[in-house]
């Protein structure tokens, strides 16, 4: 199975094809937003430590 991202502006309307979800600008910004990521850092660490403790 192979796939290529269709170059911008070349998608034909009503074309029967498969498009994976693409993040919005807001979602992308939050991935490197310092305050949000400091919070996620704490959350992910807790999740990992819980997993470590499980064994």
């Amino acid at each position: 199975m192979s796939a290529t991202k269709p170059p911008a502006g070349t998608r034909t309307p009503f074309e029967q094809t498969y498009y994976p979800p693409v993040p919005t600008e807001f979602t992308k910004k939050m991935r490197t937003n310092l305050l949000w990521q400091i919070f996620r850092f704490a959350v992910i660490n807790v999740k990992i430590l819980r997993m470590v403790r499980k064994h």
Partner: protein
Amino acid sequence: MARLVILGAGIAGQTAALHARRRLGRDHEVVVVSPNSKWNWIPSNIWVGVGVMTPEQVTFPLRPVYEKTGIAFVQGKAVSVHPEGDGDSGKPYVKVELTETGKSGQEERVHYDWLVNATGPKLNFDATPGLGPQKNSLSVCTFDHAAHTSKAFDETVARMKAGEKQTLLIGTGHGNCTCQGAAFEYIFNVEFELRRRGVRDKARVVWLSNEHELGDFGMGGMFIRRGGYVTHSRVFTESLYTERGIEWITRAAVKEVAPGEASYETLDGDERSLKFDFAMLLPPFSGVGLKAFDRAGADITPSVFAPNGFMLVDGDYAKKPYEEWSPEDWPRTYQSPKFPNVFAVGIAFAPPHAISKPMTSPKGTPIFPTPPRTGMPTGVMAREVAFNIVDMIKGNATAPKRQASLAHMGAACIASAGAGLFRGTAVSMTLFPIVPDFRKYPDTGRDLDWTFGEIGLAGHWIKHLLHFGFIYKAKANPLWTMVPE
């Protein structure tokens, strides 16, 4: 006095050696046999492969650590195991070919009372004609390979800066590769670096792998709860590839790598090829090729090792169809059924079967990932095996009590998608259990409360901290036991 010999000084060997040494009194001996004088934090090799780190940053010399901790070190490569000794004596030993400068090529017998095989994989580049850094493709599996790959990457970027378009092909170099996670990290770090170096518009970046779908990673993929849905990792992975403009080819077994061109067969049976300017394709793994002999010198390798060279332990290796696979097939104590004083941990033990569903092309080529054995479970099983052996040496137990089955264990994994203190990202994942249990979790195979994934800068920070934390721990620096496996 008992003598514990550990073959290999990777994640598994080092974890087992340090824990055993710490718990055993000085009247017992711990010996490590390993061909390389350096320890390598392999997960950071992907950063060496794009020039973000140097080999020196991901390695350190082993000997000073062993002198400090009281572990004996034999720098050499184990070639055969003699669990019953030989004609002269019934004392078990391992035949070792020394690799230390000045002694290279000499043979030594290393006697043991307890043996842990932690020799990891043989990087089996020969399985695909033309594959590997000696031939027509690159690798990031060792720090040397990664340093060589980094130079080739710089040359590719230089050609792009001179205005040439380049195709970069990254993925797996055989129908039965594992470790897709490492190739995933590498392709995303390459793509990130191309943008950072201002040449992204000149690059066609292509993923080529033996996974049935993107996001399989040799674990049959995973489901997570997100945005009100239970969604398969395929969706998130395809989203990430699309966002970063990376093309993908899955269900492919690379059959040959010629200079500048990879030929592959797809699960449909099609034969195709792709021209490239830069190709990093991982090799399939096999066991390192240890042999075993009985006291009379007869070859007993088939009863100690599986045909792929990995060591048989307490798993259920009976051949059965995919539908009959059970989590209970997976080993718990990693003890050899034939020789109870012998164990195998990390990549060195033989998995009873794959985790991803086996698939074969109409031409009979198997095209599916073999099971990954990542750092965290490797460390946990090495620790548990070390504790079991210590208990038995001290007379506190007569059989291994602690268990570390991949079917009852979870894993946390951080996959880098680009390095940078403020702009880097990584995918953070946890999943439980590693081997899915469709009887207990009929729809998803795993516990959704313990399985999650997200991408962001926080993941990169954690990946970077793990780099320092694990090197600190492997050096047995003060309070190293506080760093979890």
